[in-house]
């Protein structure tokens, strides 16, 4: 076997053709899952005898009879006075803004009968451009979080006692006086009006300090920009203008600063359109494989402590080209030096059209990165300041100062504003102790988290969907936030609370919505010019976004001190093992931990859900042998990790692309108080973060010891890596020939030779295709030729009459551009929200029971130690010759004249033949009544796992369900429907306007959610449709085209722009 594998693989087991693995892929229920079931102590609950069976049987029959004979009296409750905006049955959309700390997205909120059920991106926004992220999609579920604090409260020993807001206001204003030393500790605050409220508060209480911090800090970047350009902002990065991108550990597509914006820019130069066969080149310098790194053309491996040297080395290379000399970074590893030299060539060749970014939290390193960009002439082209970003404003140094003051008894009151310092800081324990020392502590947080439970008062904030507000995410790009539902609980907006306590004269306390009036008044004075304020306000509110001219200079001169910076970069450690900590896509730094949609969203690279895992390096030992560090043989094995004295036990995953001598793990897990979904999931590593000499948090640690694995596997290890695998191939030992895994399972000694040619001799399976940009012509030609061969095979159809129907009206199809797909998982969460896909919990995921209709498969190819990655969104392919349809004994799944593979839940009897016969493995079976949709409450009993009840059993949570999609009950199969409810709605609206259907009438949930526009849905019979245009591309292919199922989802070949000079 070669060290490079162009055919692609998903895991070590598959790569080495592990016998057990291959066999396990054949059975519908995995042997591992079966063992887990048998081991389960809950199995005892299931014991029953013949009598019980008869009882249940008798009950079943009589209950069925009763249930169907007696018509339950249902009530139809009309409005008393109908609101003019609401027509029952028709969705209303309102423009608003998603904000959580520094995370921002302009959204359109879909409401039905007055309750928000889905968020879409707002295409009018010049920042997020209609894109969303998984967090945005999932945030609507947090509105209906049963753990939300329901009123103002007094807290004693972690127990909240409800008090009225008047009581709270009276008590607090009684305790505070003009001399009170107050510290408002919050996350990044992007709202100009909220900041104004803070200022008013500070006027009343002059000894107040508003301290912002970000759990994943960018303070050093802000400081470096301050030092170099005189303003404390995040520069306006433009990835779409860059031909060469070098990212030092910045996960700018997933989590870094403004990922929705960056992803949409990035994809513009990564997709190949028409004759334009060029794309940007992306180098990622990192130790662990981040999502952004997985999308890069070249990953340059450096240890976390080498980041400083790597930046300095690149600086010295660029400086040499620019004519100044600076020797630095000599202590970098040689491989990286060589690779960076190549990167520098590419950067220099694209002067003014390149971009270097870094996630480092070291001022010197960030200064050097700015200096590199300055030398490259990127300031003003790919980096601008006119529209600088305010999405990170935190500074943890001020926090350290506040802690000192608290401990010295110099603080009278602490307000926590969407901040959880007792969890997400390296010194969370010190904060927990310090909070107790403050006389008055108030938390605005929305759930009883680690910090709130230590405060005296809880003054819970609204959810953003209940709030009025504004956001200035980038200079001059404002957007408004408006409530789309009455506050569900007795909560109050934090700036409103601050204004009340400040006794602000500008707050019209008699008004219905005092903060709304305050916001409007602020906009009138700050942004409005003209005569008719009302129409200005109405249009801003309607559009959701508002643009102000910005007169800040676009390209201020760089004035950073490079010499000093060169001396202050972090030095490589001599440690043999280093660990880096990263922010995961889903739960972030822990602030999203109580959202089950995000917990169940698998990590794009590691493919694990419900927890964080240690990434262990995989090394190639030659000849089909791999070994993982720390003796890990199987994913999920528990490891003992000691980091600077603290010891942890957690599961491990063998991770390709993880640099030897390093390991990595996600932050944001191991919450102690995060509600029913987040508490106790995963392991908390915040205590192992370090702080550098200047007080900036460092997201790595060099003092790591990992004990060798004892081979014990984590209980309910929820990794979806090997679930629903398709097209697994194997090497037959005797002949050395490559065959399908299903054949491999049959290749037994007794049958040797007999099974050859099984299933039509299909020995080559085409799941994904990839090419280097330089060989695209040959690869395309080969693809076209190969497809012709398939099409010849595929001339036969099972349903000859269908052609006539397919051509008559619509024919729905989809196109997925694998070059635009970055694997972020937004579509998967959007699909769950749109289609009422249930949450199943960790245990069920570990048993392959996840219900997601859309999964994102991750495949590696290329260098087996440091591979490239393809992400492939996989959902029902709506095959014309669908293998699932003809095995259904009750015709519950069949084909529509519009090319849809239909699924009638009420007809399904649950044989699961279809799921077994599906080559793409996209059908999901409801093993339990996950959404309590069943008529019989007996079926609701949760066999599924962690909580007492299924997540959707709570009426509050059920408010998020889409009323246009059936809630499935136990025992039926479900799968992607191409959002048929949207298709029907779109057709109806076209009919109502008496015009032909256009693209914008029907857009699937995954399509609208995608930040990069990777998914196109439409009518392939309409030559005008965007889909038809995208289908005309020689790079397109169908997955498993050779098996003649004639699927309706086209993918494009993945093209990379790898710099081969590094590999040589």
């Amino acid at each position, binding site marked *: 076997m070669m060290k490079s594998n162009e055919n692609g693989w998903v895991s070590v087991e598959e790569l080495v053709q592990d016998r057990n693995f291959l066999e396990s892929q054949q059975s519908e229920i995995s042997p591992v899952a079966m063992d887990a079931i048998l081991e389960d102590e809950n199995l005892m609950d299931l014991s029953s005898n013949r009598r019980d069976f008869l009882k249940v049987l008798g009950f079943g029959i009589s209950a069925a009879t009763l249930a169907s004979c007696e018509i339950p009296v*249902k009530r139809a409750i009309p*409005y008393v006075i109908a609101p003019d905006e609401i*027509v029952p049955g028709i969705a209303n959309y309102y423009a608003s803004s998603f904000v959580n700390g520094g995370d921002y997205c302009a959204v359109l909120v879909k409401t039905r009968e007055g309750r928000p059920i889905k968020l879409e991106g707002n295409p009018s926004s010049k920042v997020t451009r209609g894109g969303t992220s998984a967090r945005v999609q999932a945030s609507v579920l947090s509105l209906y979080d049963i753990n939300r604090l329901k009123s103002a409260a007094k807290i004693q020993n972690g127990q909240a006692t409800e008090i009225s807001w008047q009581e709270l206001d009276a008590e607090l204003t009684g305790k505070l006086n003009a001399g009170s030393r107050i510290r408002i500790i919050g996350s990044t605050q992007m709202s100009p009006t909220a900041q104004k409220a803070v200022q008013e508060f500070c006027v009343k209480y002059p000894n107040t300090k508003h301290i912002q911090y970000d759990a994943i800090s960018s303070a050093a970047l802000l400081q470096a920009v301050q030092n170099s350009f005189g303003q404390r902002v995040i520069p306006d990065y433009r990835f779409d203008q860059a031909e060469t991108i070098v990212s030092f550990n910045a996960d700018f597509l997933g989590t870094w600063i403004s990922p929705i914006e960056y992803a949409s820019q990035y994809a513009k130069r990564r997709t190949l359109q028409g004759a334009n066969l060029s794309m940007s080149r992306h180098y990622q310098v990192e130790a662990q494989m981040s999502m952004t790194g997985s999308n890069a053309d070249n990953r340059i491996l450096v240890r976390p402590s080498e980041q400083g040297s790597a930046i300095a080395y690149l600086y010295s290379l660029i400086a040499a080209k620019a004519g100044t000399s600076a020797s630095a970074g000599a202590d970098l590893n040689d491989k990286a030096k060589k690779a960076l030299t190549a990167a520098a060539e590419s950067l220099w060749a694209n002067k003014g059209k390149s971009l270097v970014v870094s996630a480092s939290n070291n001022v010197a390193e960030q200064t050097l990165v700015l200096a590199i960009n300055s030398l490259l002439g990127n300031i003003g082209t790919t980096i601008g300041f006119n529209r600088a970003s305010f999405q990170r404003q935190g500074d943890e140094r001020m926090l350290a100062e506040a802690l000192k003051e608290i401990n010295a008894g110099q603080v009278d009151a602490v307000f926590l504003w969407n901040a959880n310092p007792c969890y997400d800081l390296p010194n969370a324990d010190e904060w927990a102790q310090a909070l107790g020392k403050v006389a008055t502590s108030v938390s605005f947080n929305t759930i009883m988290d680690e910090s709130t439970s230590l405060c005296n008062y809880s003054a819970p904030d609204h959810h953003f969907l209940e709030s009025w507000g504004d956001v200035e995410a980038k200079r001059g790009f404002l957007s408004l936030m408006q409530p789309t539902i009455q506050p569900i609980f007795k909560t109050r907006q934090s700036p409103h609370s601050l204004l009340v306590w400040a006794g602000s004269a500008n707050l019209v306390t008699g008004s219905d919505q005092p903060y709304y009036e305050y916001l409007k008044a602020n906009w009138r004075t700050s942004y409005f010019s003209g005569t008719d304020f009302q129409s200005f306000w109405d249009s801003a509110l309607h559009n959701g976004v508002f643009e102000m001219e910005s007169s800040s200079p676009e390209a201020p001169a760089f004035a950073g001190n490079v010499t000093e910076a060169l001396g202050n970069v972090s030095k490589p450690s001599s440690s043999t093992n280093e660990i880096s900590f990263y922010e995961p896509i889903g739960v972030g730094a822990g602030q999203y931990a109580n959202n089950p949609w995000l917990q169940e969203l698998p990590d794009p690279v590691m493919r694990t859900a419900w927890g964080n895992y240690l990434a262990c390096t995989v090394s190639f030992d030659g000849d089909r042998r791999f070994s993982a560090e720390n003796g890990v043989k199987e994913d999920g094995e528990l490891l003992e990790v000691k980091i600077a004295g603290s010891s942890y036990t957690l599961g491990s995953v063998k991770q390709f692309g993880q640099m030897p001598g390093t390991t990595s793990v996600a932050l944001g897990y191991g919450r102690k108080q995060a509600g029913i979904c987040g508490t106790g999931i995963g392991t908390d590593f915040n205590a192992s973060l370090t702080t550098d000499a200047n007080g900036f948090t460092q997201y790595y640690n060099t003092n790591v010891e990992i004990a060798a694995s004892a081979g014990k596997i984590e209980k309910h290890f929820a990794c979806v890596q090997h679930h629903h695998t398709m097209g697994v191939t194997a090497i037959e030992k005797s002949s050395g020939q490559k065959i399908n895994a299903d054949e491999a399972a049959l290749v037994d000694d007794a049958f040797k030779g007999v099974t050859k040619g099984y299933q039509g001799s299909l020995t080559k399976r085409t799941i994904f295709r990839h090419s280097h940009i330089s060989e695209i012509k040959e690869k395309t030609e080969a693809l076209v030729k190969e497809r012709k061969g398939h099409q010849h095979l595929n001339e036969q159809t099972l349903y000859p009459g269908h052609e006539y129907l397919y*051509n008559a009206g619509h024919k729905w199809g989809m196109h997925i551009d694998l070059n635009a797909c970055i694997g972020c998982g937004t579509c998967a969460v959007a699909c769950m929200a749109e289609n009422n896909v249930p949450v199943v919990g960790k245990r069920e995921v570990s048993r392959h029971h996840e219900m997601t209709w859309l999964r994102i498969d991750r495949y590696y190819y290329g260098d087996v130690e440091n591979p490239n990655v393809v992400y492939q969104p996989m959902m029902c392919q709506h095959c014309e010759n669908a293998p699932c349809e003809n095995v259904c004994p009750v015709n519950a799944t069949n084909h529509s004249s519009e090319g849809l593979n239909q699924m009638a839940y009420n007809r399904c009897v649950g044989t699961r033949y279809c799921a077994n016969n599906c080559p793409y493995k996209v059908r999901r079976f409801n093993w339990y009544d996950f959404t309590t949709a069943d008529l019989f409450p007996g079926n609701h009993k949760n066999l599924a796992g962690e909580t007492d009840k299924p997540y959707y059993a709570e009426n509050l949570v059920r408010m998020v369900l889409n009323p246009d999609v059936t809630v499935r009950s136990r025992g039926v199969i479900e799968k992607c429907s191409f959002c048929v409810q949207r298709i*029907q709605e779109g057709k*109806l609206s076209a009919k109502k306007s008496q015009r032909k259907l256009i693209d914008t009438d029907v857009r699937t949930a995954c399509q609208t959610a995608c930040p990069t526009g990777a998914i196109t849905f439409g009518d392939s019979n309409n030559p005008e449709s965007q889909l038809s245009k995208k289908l005309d591309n020689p790079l397109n292919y169908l997955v498993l085209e050779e098996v003649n199922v004639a699927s309706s989802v086209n993918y494009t070949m993945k093209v990379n722009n790898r710099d081969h000079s590094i590999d040589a």
Partner: protein
Amino acid sequence: MSCKQVLKILFALVLSQVALSAAPDIELGKTSFKNNCASCHNKNMKDALTGPALAGFVERWAAYPKEDLYKWIRNSQAMINAGHPKATELWAQYKPTVMTAFPNLTDDEIESIVLYVNGVAAGTYPPKSADSVATGTGTPSSGGQASSIWLYLIFGILLALALFLWSLQNDLIYAKKTAEGDPSASKKTIWELLTSKSVISFVLFALVLFGGYATVNNAISLGRQQNYAPEQPIKFSHATHAGLHKIDCNYCHDGARRSKQSVIPPASTCMNCHKAIKNGSKYGTAELTKIYASIGFDPMTDKYISNYESLSNEEIKAIYTKWIGEEYKKVNAVTTLSGDAQTQVDDQWADIESSLTHASKPKVSGPIEWIRIHNLPDHVYFNHSQHVTIGKIECQKCHGKVEEMDLLRQYSPLSMGWCINCHRETDVKFQDNAYYETYKTYHLELKDGTRTSVKVSDIGGLECQKCHY
């Protein structure tokens, strides 16, 4: 009568017919008024309802050209927006109540309405002699029940006849056999005949057959509720509203045109008319007070009660028993309520209270909770607007003659077979809607005559995911 005379008369008749449909006519005016105006303008033309009294409305517009009045009637909002002085004056007086636009009314129709309005206002219409003309349009109900009784009767007679003939045949055989001197001959009684093997096996066979048939039939109808007609909290009569007063279905069920649901009207819709009509024709205050008690309207002061939601049932009772009492006094021309009358008032209130409350809704105020009649299973998606606006299906096709129902009942079985059957038989309004241009093949086939119509089933109307998703 000569041939010429006959021709003359015929000619005159034809002429008058033509004239009838062209020139303003008071009968046409009456119909147009009822169809378009009566839901907001008082029929007596003298009192205001939701809209102003119409008596003398032409005179009020005398200062402006006739066309202005026509425009006003066809689309009042457009005129208000255009800033017409009379229009803005009226708007200032009546806003925010918006007059429905009637863009389809012709000048002649408007003139007919003017004739009718003036006639009624002046008391010259209707002519006294026309009083006796019956207005009922109801047809006698079909004899479905009766005919099946007849069938049973005929079946019974035939059965008796068969039995009689059989015993007669037996008698004859017996007679013949005795005549032939057959010693084995015996006369069979009716009982012996009925308990004979052949009869028993036939009965058993019939039982199995009918039993099976009944089981299958009943199983199919499980969960179905055709003819379901529960008592509603208010004795609302569609016959009165849709039948007698000819209020358009869409006026109250305004979702049917544009939404999935037809929408049960909110109490505020009832108030559009019942602000003025405070006594029902059948039940007086007994039913109408329920609307007032739901929404919090005080019929004595014609004002909505502020903070109504926070009032207790006792406080609400005080308001409305007073109203019921006042009305009682007015109707019976008494000045005080006797003990007996007070009991009647209290009884009436007790009924109102029990109608508006139930175990989980203890308060009188708040929405009127109707009993839902048409219940589709959760896995069925049905959209009214698709059928009403696009398919142009009459409401009556599925809901029956609602305008004749005092108590609403479910007319159709709402079974899948019933839906499917209609989708098989119904033509798509293919030519009128540009949306269907997508179906090029069908258009071509229609053109060259290979196809005469496109049924709903031809565009996928029988496919699962048209209704189940």
